[in-house]
């Protein structure tokens, strides 16, 4: 089964990449008022244990590796 993990910088963190992209978009005269940049990670896990077990495992992976809770939040999306 395939899952997507969306990792975004926490609101309190100054999102330097987002700020740079926002600046460029504004320079291009787009109506953009804000922009934030994160990561999207696609992972595929072996088909065993049923969907809820796999989802729990993806949460575990996201918690322990894919995001750093001090600076980021994550969200899991079923693909």
């Amino acid at each position, binding site marked *: 089964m395939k899952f997507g993990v969306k990792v975004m910088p926490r609101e309190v963190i100054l999102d330097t990449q987002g700020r*740079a992209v926002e600046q460029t978009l504004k320079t291009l005269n787009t109506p953009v008022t804000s922009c934030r940049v994160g990561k999207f990670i696609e992972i595929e896990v072996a088909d065993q244990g049923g969907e809820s077990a796999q989802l729990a495992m993806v949460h575990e992976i996201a918690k322990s*590796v894919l995001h*750093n809770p*001090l600076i980021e939040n994550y969200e899991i999306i079923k693909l």
Partner: protein
Amino acid sequence: MTVSSNKTTRVGIVRFPGTNCDRDVAQFVEAKLSQPVYLWHLDQFDTKDFDSLIVPGGFSYGDYLRSGALSARSPVMKSVREFAQRGGPILGICNGFQILTEAGLLPGALVQNRSLNFIDEWSVLKIENQSSSWGGEKIKKGSQIRLPIAHGDGRFYAPADLLKKIEDQGQVWMRYTENPNGSLSDIAGVLSSDKKIAGLMPHPERALFEWMGGTDGWEFIA
């Protein structure tokens, strides 16, 4: 690397793909008449074989995912953790500091510089608290030292409650006198609660002799 018989203090230098300050650190260790031993990221080691460990700078695993994130989860870190649990002294320099925070051995996180620029310059640092292992009495509380920095992701960050704990427990090792990267509370280096594990963004191994532009790094290793 040649090893003479009188070199009894063994310093493990942990290397990952993309580490690039390993030889500078090894030469620093040799200059202090200790024996540097390279440790590879895929291997584990016997913690009793080492007196201290240094995690040098570079761009381990290409800084993929987050600086230090993948290195912090590589096989060698199991032994590094064991070494820490035994109370062994560990020093993380630059990317090594990022790795130790990602591994949970030091508090906080290092994120991209506020300016978005990679910063390569000399910095003046004020020592806030002494490490029991690195520099000890010679890197005195209250003193100022001058070391070079070279990093893109050096902005120290910790949520307010953690930052307060770091300050209250005397875990701030040093601060920039002029904040180059947006680090919270000007923090350039932190200590573990027992002060044996230490990490800093500046490079002591790049300030050993006059011809390097400064000598303040020399006392960081005993």
